[in-house]
């Protein structure tokens, strides 16, 4: 085995070590039933917005995350959000309604918890 092989293997292991944790509970049953349950949300990642663009999209993503978690999501640590319970999202003010795409990432948004009056307002902070 060459130094290059060793270095490549180590780089793969280091990259994998930085992956978010994987929840394997329920995976086997979901696969058997033919209804995969992998998280539909993206990773909370301070730095950029991927897959969507524009203020409306920022609002959309932020609302989706807040609606799914029911919490104030401000932690910049990469976290996989489970959005199974939420399929439609709206942003008061912009009126954006739609779905969050799997793997979308968000940057500098400050979503608030869902309220009795509807979906939360979110405030892009970029």
């Amino acid at each position, binding site marked *: 085995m*060459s*130094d*290059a*092989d060793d*270095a*490549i*293997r*180590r*780089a*793969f*292991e*280091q*990259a*994998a*070590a*930085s*992956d*978010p944790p*994987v929840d*394997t509970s329920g*995976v*086997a049953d*979901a*696969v*058997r039933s*033919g209804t*995969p*349950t*992998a*998280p*539909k*949300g*993206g*990773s909370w990642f301070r*730095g*950029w*917005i*991927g*897959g969507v663009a524009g203020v409306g999209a920022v609002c959309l993503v932020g609302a989706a995350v807040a609606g799914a978690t029911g919490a104030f999501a401000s932690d910049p640590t990469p976290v*996989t959000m489970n959005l199974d319970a939420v399929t439609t999202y709206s942003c008061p003010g912009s009126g954006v309604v739609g779905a969050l795409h*799997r*793997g979308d*990432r968000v940057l500098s948004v400050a979503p608030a918890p869902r309220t009795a009056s509807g979906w939360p307002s979110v405030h892009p902070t970029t």
Partner: protein
Amino acid sequence: MLDSQTQVLDLDRFVAEDYTRVVSAVARITGNHADAQDAVQEALVSLLRLDRPVGSVAAWVTVAASNRARSGRRRLGAEERAVGRLGARLDPEPERLPELDLRRALAALPLKQRQAATLHYYLGQPVAEVAVALGVSEGTVKTHLSRARASLARALGVEEESHE
């Protein structure tokens, strides 16, 4: 090296022992961990419907999942540009990290080379199993691995030795 399928997939065992590593493998290829989880589960659903053995389950699922995941190259490109912009703002001389070098280098490789390198270097699959999983000859796999090794070694700043 991960286990091989015989006739019937032991799904519980696969999930317990191999699932997380296969998701990581697919994430290396596609560039997105959440997409990788989706794609791996969908590949497992497809695998359960197959009526033939597939050799290495880990290799088969990795290839099937990475083929079905959304375009990793496009996503990786956008992400790298964004990460680069962020890094430029936060740290004018960012530390060089092997995982970032690997990520950039993988993103630049053709899909088959990414798959072959990930199967071989991360999942520990021998050339013969990589060939079965990719549906190509062992010679083709060696070519993919040779080219991928050269690119990855260069990206990691390692001097490549002649390798057969």
